[in-house]
Every structure is written in C-alpha cells, then in structure tokens.
C-alpha cells in the first residue's frame, strides 16, 4: 500500500511542471485565450516531442503505452499551467479509438495520432438533449450522420471527429467535408475552444460495438478531466494563499483573519481530497478495473464541485481585483466551471456512484 509515484511517474510530473511553466506563462495563456485557434503549431510540436499525444497509445502503434496514472499526472499539470491546447480532445479520441476501433481503424489512426501527425476530437452531446453524456439520439442512416452536436472541443483544428450515436457506438468522420459545418461558439472557458458541429448526412465509419471498453475509456476521460480540475484548483489556492499573505487591510495581512484563513484551509481539504480520488481512480483504471468506473465517477463528481468552489473561493479572497479581467484568476475559475459541466456534472456522477454502489 503506497500512494507514492514511481520514479518514472515523478520524472514525468517534474518534466511536465518545468516544461509547462516555461512555455505557458500567464501572458501566453492570455494571448491564446484571445486567439481564435487557441494554440500554435510550434506549441503542438513541442507536445508531440514529449510524446504526450501518444501517452496512452500502445507502444506497438508508436505511442508511449503508459497508463492512467501517467495520464492523470500530465493533465493535473496541464490544469495547473492552464495550458490551452488540443491535447485533451486529442487524447479523448485516442482513448476511444484504442478502446473500440476495429483493427484497421487502430492501424490506420493510432500511429499518426501518437506521432501528432493528425488530431482527433470527440462529439458527445446532441443539441437540446439534456444532461446525460452517455445518451445520444443520433441514428446513423446508411453510414451517414445527420445531427447537430454541441460543445465539441477543438473541432476546427481536428482532422477527424468521433461522434457518439444512439447505437452506443462511435462513428469516425474525417473533417474537411462539405456536409460538415463547424461553428465557433464563444465558450465560458476561452482557453478551450468549443464548436457546434452540424452534420448533414456526412459519411462516417462505425467503430466496433464494445460497451465495456468504451465505458472504461470514458472513465479515463473523466478522470483526466477531474485531474485537470485538481491542477486548476491547486493553482487558484496557491494564488489565494499568496495574496492572503501579501494583501493588508486594517494594518494586517488578510490571511491573519479567520474568515480568510479558514477559507484557505477549506480549499486545501478540497484540493487534497480531489487529488486522492483522482490518483485512486487512475490506479484502479490500470490495476483494478472492477472498481474503476465507481472511482472515476467519484473523482469527477467531487472534482467538479471542488474545482468550482476553490476557484470561486479564491476570487472571494482576492476581492475586487479578482473580478477584473487583468487578473489571471478568472481563467482558472472558468476552466474549473466548464470542466464541472463536461462529461456529466457532479449531480449526474453522484447518481452513477449510487447506482454502481448498488444503493
């Protein structure tokens, strides 16, 4: 029984922290938030050099062949740096392809994905279809999809789309097709670009019907997202604690008032608790699949709430300055809140936890 990372995992974490803090300084994040595309080719190649697009792609396909723990380490750091990047949507696609692609599809796509030569993304929610991230009413007709999907990350810069459909499969659709309309949507979190994708009978290939592996892939996705929120919340907490030490009102640092210091202590409880759940879920994904879905839903439920509460609480500690665009805090709050609603919110995942625990 040991929560400590292996030396390799420690090394990944250290590299990630150093790399990301050097490359994604606050002013860079701010520029990318204002940029239409949200990242540069240069930034993408650097991530490719680290091998991150292939982190979970098997070595046989040219990936790093690592597990969920390493995935979580990387996304915790991506969240801490708030690095705008299509990496997350790309890894979502890789997870689903690896889980339910046919042999040919895996052969065709996983290598280029791992090599960063192409990028994929994932289209989950139908328009006006409610909260559930696992229900779609899109009925594929003769290998073609007619549907409107909302909140699709990085669709404008992806090479292909995996579309969730009513038959519990995903359909792979190469973009650049005239029957596909990609509309940019102003997103709450400007560091992650979202699009509405309108498919008017676009041709698409079905992935295999593999409900078990697909559920496992989604569990990895939500665990990575929960880990992002851990990183985001950690950073917001550090900003709040630093501000509470520096800022003086009534001739003393505001961190010496319990209204502020107990608020910060609460942040620590929530950040560390979310982190424990994420590490556990990641470990279970790798080593204890029978626990993994429950652990992942627990992590996502808790980190959804904690991410928002901690960033929101950090804003309260900052007072007025935290409400200004000039201050970086709002980017963290917006990412945490957007993540809270992505792939099932806290309430939805609590329902899953109850069901999985056979309450």
């Amino acid at each position, binding site marked *: 029984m040991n929560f400590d990372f292996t030396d390799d995992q420690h090394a990944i974490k250290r590299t990630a922290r150093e790399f990301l803090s050097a490359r994604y300084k606050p002013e860079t994040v701010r520029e990318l938030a204002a940029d239409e595309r949200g990242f540069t080719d240069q930034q993408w190649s650097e991530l490719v050099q680290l091998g991150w697009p292939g982190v979970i792609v098997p070595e046989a396909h040219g990936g790093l062949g690592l597990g969920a723990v390493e995935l979580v380490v990387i996304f915790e750091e991506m969240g801490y740096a708030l690095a705008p990047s299509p990496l997350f949507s790309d890894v979502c696609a890789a997870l689903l392809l690896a889980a339910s692609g046919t042999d040919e599809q895996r052969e065709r796509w996983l290598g280029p994905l791992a090599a960063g030569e192409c990028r994929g993304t994932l289209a989950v929610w139908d328009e006006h279809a*409610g909260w559930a991230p696992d229900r779609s009413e899109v009925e594929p007709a003769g290998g073609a999809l007619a549907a409107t999907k909302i909140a699709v990350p990085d669709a404008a810069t992806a090479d292909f789309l995996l579309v969730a459909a009513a038959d519990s499969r995903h359909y792979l659709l190469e973009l650049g097709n005239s029957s596909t309309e990609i509309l940019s949507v102003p997103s709450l979190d400007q560091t992650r670009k*979202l699009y509405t994708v309108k498919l008017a009978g676009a041709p698409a290939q079905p992935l295999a019907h593999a409900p078990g592996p697909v559920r496992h892939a989604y569990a990895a996705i939500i665990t990575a997202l929960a880990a992002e929120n851990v990183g985001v919340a950690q950073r917001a907490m550090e900003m709040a604690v630093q501000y509470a030490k520096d800022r003086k009102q009534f001739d003393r640092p505001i961190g010496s008032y319990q209204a502020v210091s107990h608020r910060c202590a609460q942040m620590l409880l929530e950040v560390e608790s979310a982190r424990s759940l994420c590490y556990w879920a990641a470990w279970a994904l790798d080593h204890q699949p029978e626990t993994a879905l429950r652990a992942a839903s627990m992590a996502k439920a808790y980190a959804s709430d904690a991410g928002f509460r901690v960033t929101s609480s950090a804003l*309260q500690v900052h007072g007025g300055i935290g409400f200004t665009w000039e201050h970086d805090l709002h980017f963290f709050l917006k990412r945490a809140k957007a993540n809270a*609603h992505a792939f099932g919110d806290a*309430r939805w995942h609590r329902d899953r936890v109850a069901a999985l625990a056979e309450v």
Partner: protein
Amino acid sequence: MDLTLSQAEEAFRDELRSWLGENHPGHEPAGDEAAFEFRREWQRKLHGAGWAGVSWPKEYGGRGATLVEQAIFNEELVRARAPQVANVLGLAMGGPTVIAHGTEEQRKRYLPPILSAQEIWCQGFSEPDSGSDLASLKTRAVRHGDQWVVSGQKVWTTFAHHAKWCMLVARTDPDAPKHKGLTYFLMDMEQDAVHVRPLRQITGEAEFNELFIEEARIPDENIIGGEGNGWAVAITTLMHERSTLAFGLQVGVQIALGELIEHARQTRAQDGIVASDDPVVRQRLAQLLIESEILRLNAYRGLSAIMRGGVPGPEGSLGKWHWSEVNQSLTELAMDIAGPYAMSAEDRWTYRFLRARANSIEGGTTEILKNIVAERVLGLPRMR
C-alpha cells in the same frame, strides 16, 4: 400587523404602474453612448412626471414619499423592467448626502441638475490598496489658498466617463488618526488632471473604471460636511446605497427566479423529463423561492422597524449579504440546469453567473458585513 398596502400606498403604486405602462420607453439601444443618451432621456421623462427623487423633500424637487412608497417605487421600476436612469448615483446617494450634510447653497446648486440628469455623478471612494479598509485611503488633498490640489487613484468608479461630479473622499490631514483626517469633496470631472480608464471585468464588460487624479483642483466651497468630517459624510452615502438598492435587488431576484423556473421548464434534463420535474432541481428551486421571499419580507420588516423606532432593525444589516448568497445560488442552479450549455458563453445565464461572483464583494464584502452584524447588532467584541 398589516402586510397589504394601505389605500394611499396602493394609490401610489397604481398611479406609478399606469404611468409606467404608458411611458415605458422600450429596450435600451446597443452601444455605450446611445444607451447613455437613452437613459438620460428616460430620466428626464421620469423627472417631468415627478418621478425623480421620489423620497427627496418637496422643497428640493422631490416627491416627499414615505419609506414604503420609496420601496414601492424601486420595486415597480424593476418589475416593469424599466431602464436604468442616467444618474443612478446622483439620485440614490449624491443627492441624499447633499441634503443631509450640504449647506443650503450647495443644495440649491447641486440638486436640480441631479434630478434632470443634466449633471451625472460618480463615486470616488475605493482605492487599489483600500478596499474593505476604506479609511486607509491615500488620495491626498492639499490646500492652496481657497483651492485644494488632489492626487491619487480611485477604483470601481461607475459612470465616470459620463460624470460631471465625483463624490471624492481624500486625506486632508495626514497626521490625524486615519478616520479623522478625511474630507468629502465634490470634484469636477471635467478637468485634464482626471484620467478615466475602463476596468474590464471577468464578464468581458467594463462596468467600472479606474480614476487617475494628478493635481486636480477643487475649490473650498465644494467640501460637503466640513473639512476633516469626510468619514461621517461617506457613511451617509454608503447607508443610502445599501438601503435604497435593497428593494430593487430583491425584486431583481424575484424576476430572475421567474425566468429560471421558465428555463427549467424548457430544458431537457435526463430520463425524458424537463429540469423543473427533476426532484433535486425542485428542491433547489423551492429553497430559492423561500429565500427570495425572505429577502422581500426582511426588507419590509426593516422599514417597519425604522418607522417604529427611527433606527433600522437587525434585519436591515442582513439584506445585502443575504442577497448576494441568494443571487449566487440562483445563477449556479441556472448553470446546472443548462448542463452542457453551461460551457457556452452564449447562454445568458453564463453572463449572470459570472456577474454574480462580484455580489459578495461589491458594496461591502460579505466578510465586512458579517463583522458589522456581529459587532454592531449582536454586540460581540471587536475583532482584533
């Protein structure tokens, strides 16, 4: 105890409602300048019909309305979704401060153009280093003959770019204890020494400004309430801010809650039902219905306490703090109902959700308001 309106109050409300029904100017045009002119025009219309400064004494152009009538006025304007007036701060805070602390000459000089929206007012209290600790402000005013030379920086100033007058609190005696050395000025904004910079918020809008003041001039006669008496005068301004705005805020919550219930009725939730049929959402909506009713009742109980005892009852201190919590939960529920749409900034609730983050900071942070309740209402020892 009678929680209906009296006949006179009902008549007042009916007159106002019917006037608003006939005179509502419709939606505000887009664009900052156009919107401002529209608001100025709207205020002139109100003023022409005797609906500006309703609570001010008749001798200064007001209507001499009772506290309850004033509350009705603020409620009805929000209820009718009437536009803002151009001179919110002049009417709600500047005028009442001049009436309370100004000389007769000052009243004659400043009050009429407030009512007619000819001269717009803004507020220069907060500074970057003096947020909750207002009395620590550093803006300096130094006397040169019958003039004062003022330098410093103010923040969170609304309407600064349209304002003629700024309610400015500055330090005139650096050697006095911090609450004692302050003076309350009316500073003419139309001088080169005053530079206004819009302050963009997390919503993307720039509702507030920063004010950079470099050797601005203020004549001696523009002091309100006497040199060194700035703290007391500023408190008057803040008291008026909290009390006048309370009624508008609670009606605002009621309206938003009505919209939220509609939003819940029209949003698919899960398992084939709409959000308003979801038991967890219904619990949260019911709690908001209760809390918004409390905002209304506490506001009116506060008025009754003032009418009885001349001083506000304990409910009065709680309103702004409680409102901020209710409005924040309301917008958080809206986001939860929106589900995946919460990730998009197209949803009007996303804007409201972000805007509500400031509710527990603006106009007195919740922490400061709780201190005030603990110390002044409950008599607990001063926090050290």
